[in-house]
């Protein structure tokens, strides 16, 4: 096989686990009333780019089709689902609230210098048309059940609110380019960097202090208290703080206190998130297992003003985080599966056919091999 940076074969061992993870997850999604959809792998770039995160657009594979249209390979499923949902709602083919699930492949160019393609499977759900806190909580609960059913022990939801970060960054008066730099410093938990950037800009101290509080390394409920203390008169901020506190309290009361951590710096991922969002991390995998959150402006890119919330899991990361004992996968095939092919091909293959008719596992073994 030619060595190509764009080919990433998967062999049986990893495929089997991935299929099992997908099957389990889709059962959970279905159990919560989410109906599976398929979105196109190839789409018109012009129609999708309005909803694409700039980073996702930059790292996308694009090409020109026979008619001169610029096409894009799907880099993220959520914008494609948003487009599909918007058209369905517009044509009255679907009504809100819409609950959809998916298990789709995405392709994007890796961040590294060599520009390799990375293919990943995303599993996820989107709840469209629900603006209330109940929608946020449902989103968390579906993800939590999914990970529990998969048998994962080591994971944690780092919870933030993109709206709070955006609100505070706007309040600093920083231009867009500087806001992006500060945003990057927040996600890197770099309060020194934040102070340096905003200090040079001449932003007011209490806003510098508030933005630095977002970058607190340990995270925790104290971040919410501290923000309220720093900006005691900011009603918009206080409303948002109350909402995230409510999410935390509700999930704690439902028994998930140990799985949830307030971590206001967790602002990575797509830029379309507008409200409460989370990153699911696993120390065993050493990386994120998936992300989710509220994205109330995304459908507006397709002329439908609908609130929405959802999450997606990366199958490969989930497989990394699973211990072999978490999945009931046969490591090798039993000798009793074997049908030995000797001189009589007919006899041997008749036996194989008979076994398959009884739905028994069968493996052909050549006597001479």
């Amino acid at each position: 096989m030619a060595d190509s940076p764009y080919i990433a074969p998967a062999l049986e061992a990893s495929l089997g686990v991935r299929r099992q993870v997908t099957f389990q997850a889709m059962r959970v999604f279905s159990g919560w009333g989410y109906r599976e959809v398929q979105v196109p792998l190839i789409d018109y770039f012009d129609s999708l780019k309005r909803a694409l995160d700039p980073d996702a657009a930059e790292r996308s594979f694009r090409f020109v089709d026979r008619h001169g249209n610029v096409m894009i390979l799907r880099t993220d499923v959520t914008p494609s689902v948003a487009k599909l949902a918007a058209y369905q709602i517009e044509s009255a083919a679907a009504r809100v609230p819409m609950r959809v699930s998916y298990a789709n492949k995405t392709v994007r160019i890796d961040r590294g210098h060599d520009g390799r393609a990375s293919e990943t499977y995303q599993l996820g759900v989107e709840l469209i048309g629900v603006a209330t806190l109940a929608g946020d909580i449902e989103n968390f609960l579906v993800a939590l059940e999914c990970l529990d059913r998969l048998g994962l022990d080591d994971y944690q939801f780092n919870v933030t609110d993109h709206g709070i970060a955006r609100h505070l960054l706007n309040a600093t008066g920083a231009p867009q380019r500087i806001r992006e730099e500060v945003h990057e410093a927040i996600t890197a938990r770099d309060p020194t960097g934040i102070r340096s950037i905003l200090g040079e800009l001449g932003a007011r101290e209490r806003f510098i202090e508030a933005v630095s509080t977002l970058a607190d390394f340990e995270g925790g409920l104290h971040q919410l208290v501290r923000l309220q203390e720093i900006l005691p008169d900011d009603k918009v901020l206080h409303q948002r703080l109350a909402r995230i506190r409510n999410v935390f309290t509700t999930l704690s009361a439902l028994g998930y206190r140990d799985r949830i951590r307030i971590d206001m710096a967790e602002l990575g991922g797509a830029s379309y998130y507008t409200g409460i969002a989370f990153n699911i991390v696993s120390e065993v995998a050493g990386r994120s297992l998936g992300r989710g959150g509220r994205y109330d402006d995304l459908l507006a890119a397709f002329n439908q003003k609908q609130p929405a919330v959802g999450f997606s899991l990366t199958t490969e990361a989930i497989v990394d985080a699973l211990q072999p004992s978490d999945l009931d996968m046969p490591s090798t095939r039993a000798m009793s599966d074997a049908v030995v092919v000797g001189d009589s091909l007919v006899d041997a293959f008749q036996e194989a056919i008979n076994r398959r008719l009884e739905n028994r596992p069968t493996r052909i073994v050549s006597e001479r091999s």
Partner: protein
Amino acid sequence: MTQVIRMALPEGLDFNLIAKHLRAAGIDLPQGGDMWTIERPFDMDFDLEILKLAPVDVGTYVERGAVQLGVMSTDLLHESDVDVWRPFTFSFGTYPIIFGTRRGTTLSSLNSRPQIRLATPIPRFTREWFAHRGFTTEILHVTDSAEKAVLLGLADGFVDRLVHPERLIAEGFRAVERVGTTHLKLIVNNATNSPRRKFISTLMEALGNHQPPSPSRVAIPFDEDD
């Protein structure tokens, strides 16, 4: 039960300063060797395993969680484009990044060439910086001495950290422009959970309390040639 936290330190230029700072902060790092285990520093339920790695590799190990924390300079972080947290800045390890050439070569003489050949260990940064300013360049990635590449005619100029200004002058080079600054950061895997974050916070607090005075800034020996 005691758990383990692994920390990667970069070999080379700043290793001794980092080791000294860690010792001052209460991490009893022995002299010599490549790998050490410090049992239960700060009386917390973690053993700290410390190992040396090539500076450019530290970010990759931390990003993928093979080690939970490390020390890396911001120029190499930018170059390797790793997704890690960087919650602590060391008071040392700050160097200017300069664009240098042979003495007698000016920016205008370089600009008159069809393209400027630049040797650098940080090609991504160099490409971005020069492209942003409209220069046509050929970037040559070298991991050893970028100055050597200029001496041997591989390149017209170089982009690198300036650590020893006096050596730059003695070897017949000149600084044309400061193109950036690099800082030394503590970096952390971004899937780190609460107990490990607690330990790392304690470590950062100890490092902050024993921060050595910042060394005087490296003075760039600009001349009047341009």
